[in-house]
């Protein structure tokens, strides 16, 4: 890798980092507006036009609030908890392919933080680390409610990671690779009908999205912060920006989960008729192949963000529709329904691959 490509890649990483933060920032605004609209209300509209400066106002509020340490709390871990939650949330977007590649002369820039051949494994590893942020914070608070929330978070994440991984295995059986870029590219082949994975794996997708809700601690599975039973769950004792970091990390996790689902099941940066559009640009408009490819890449990047936003909207839509599960119902759903279903899905996929129905 030359120094020049390294510089470009660094720029891409910075952009991805900034975008995750920006999207998480405006998720807080979007959540409130969507919640308001779903409940026939208006939502925040005081700060700036349509309340668009609301996240800034919230940030100022968070930063200027009193920093509170509960008596008997482990100060170091109390600070470390939200930091860890934020770090792990930000790390996982590094391997998501947000676009194919841009080519300027001889320089090729992949619109992806880092391309590694175990991308999906990396995401899983980082996401499962994320629960440590909640656990450490909940434990260090020296509060029964926080501890209960933390324990719930841990057992919930472990339970649903199993079903999520099993649902993923069916995708991996078809793709034969863990690289997210490879999985994306396989979902569209020039010159033939090729469907996104959601068509081939509908059951797997349903299992995956249910588990994604549980992994990101979103309603109907937001038992770690369950305010009706646990005050605030793991962040009961948190105030000021440490609380802000936890809330922020949740939105970044939603963003990453949406990105992973778009890549795995909804074709990532592919969009229908992209090769036809490229060929048309070359033949009818007289463009060079490189320029046409760059245009397709940019459109694909826009497309992947539209898919991500659609998923984020779905996350919020579900949150303001469904009530919370009871804890035993949550565990029963995870262990006795989703895991057997996921195993059945693996067998089904294996059978279909063996008989050549899907590949």
């Amino acid at each position, binding site marked *: 890798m030359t120094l020049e490509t390294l510089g470009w890649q660094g720029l891409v990483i910075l952009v991805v980092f900034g975008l995750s933060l920006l999207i998480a920032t405006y998720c807080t605004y979007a959540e409130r507006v969507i919640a308001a*609209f779903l409940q026939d209300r208006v939502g925040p509209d005081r700060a700036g036009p349509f309340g668009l400066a609301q996240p800034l106002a919230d940030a100022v509020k968070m930063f200027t609030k009193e920093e509170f340490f509960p008596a008997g709390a482990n100060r170091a871990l109390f600070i470390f908890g939200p930091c860890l939650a934020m770090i792990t949330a930000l790390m996982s977007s590094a391997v998501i392919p947000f676009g194919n590649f841009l080519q300027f002369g001889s320089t090729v820039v992949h619109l992806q933080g880092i391309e590694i051949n175990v991308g999906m494994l990396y995401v899983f590893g980082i996401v499962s680390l994320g629960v440590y942020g909640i656990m450490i914070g909940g434990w260090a608070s020296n509060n029964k409610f926080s501890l209960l929330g933390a324990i719930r978070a841990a057992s919930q994440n472990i339970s649903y990671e199993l079903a999520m991984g099993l649902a993923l295995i069916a995708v991996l059986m078809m793709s034969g690779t863990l690289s997210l870029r490879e999985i994306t590219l396989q979902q569209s082949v020039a010159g033939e009908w090729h469907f996104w994975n959601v068509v081939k794996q509908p059951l797997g997708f349903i299992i995956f999205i249910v588990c994604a809700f549980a992994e990101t601690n979103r309603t109907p599975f937001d038992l770690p912060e369950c305010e009706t039973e646990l005050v605030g769950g793991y962040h009961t004792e948190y105030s000021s920006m440490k609380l802000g970091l936890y809330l922020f990390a949740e939105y970044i996790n939603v963003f990453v989960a949406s990105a992973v689902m778009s890549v795995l099941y909804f074709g990532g940066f592919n969009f229908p008729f992209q090769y036809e559009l490229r060929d048309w640009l070359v033949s009818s408009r007289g463009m060079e192949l490189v320029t046409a490819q760059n245009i397709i890449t940019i459109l694909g990047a826009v497309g992947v963000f539209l898919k991500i936003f659609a998923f984020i909207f779905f996350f919020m839509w579900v949150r303001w529709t469904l009530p919370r599960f009871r804890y035993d119902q949550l565990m029963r759903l995870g262990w006795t329904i989703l895991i057997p279903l996921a195993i059945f899905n693996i067998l089904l996929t294996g059978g279909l691959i063996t008989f050549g129905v899907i590949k």
Partner: protein
Amino acid sequence: MESLSKRAKVLTKKPMTLAERAYLPAIFQGLSITMQHFFRAATKKQVTIRYPEETRPFSPVFRGLHVLKRDEKGRERCTACGLCAVACPAEAITMVAGERKKGEEGLYREEKYAVSYEINMLRCIFCGLCEEACPKAAVYLQADKMAPPRFERDEFIYGKDRLVEPVSPDLRSKRGIQLTPEQAATLRTQTA
């Protein structure tokens, strides 16, 4: 056992169907309901009134902020008889009476007038009994104004400076007395 009213119904708890147990159809039903509300909120006019910019219409019989009226020649009608203060169940009204001097006939209608007239808007319950008690038709509760919120308690004690009906500016003599339209017209031609 025979039920007395014969209206009792025996309910049987049926086992759930597969669609009910799968839970997903119910979820989609719920999602469609909330989506309808989303589009209703996004397209139709919302019921929310954004207060400082929009206000609710007042009822025509609303009893709001008091005003001390002037008569048709711009003289204060109040004679400081104190009947409003007596009628007031919240004891919000105080006044000091004074005698009209020579040359003040254009300012006060009767020989006796209110040197000061104060209403404490924090005590006032806006019942309108002062309005009913007034024999000179001087005090009224306006239907379109409210006592606005303020930061200090003493700012809620309204004196004559804020209670007396202002003279309309183009119908005002040099001494601040309200003129008839004809008088105002002649005054304007004299000064011009």
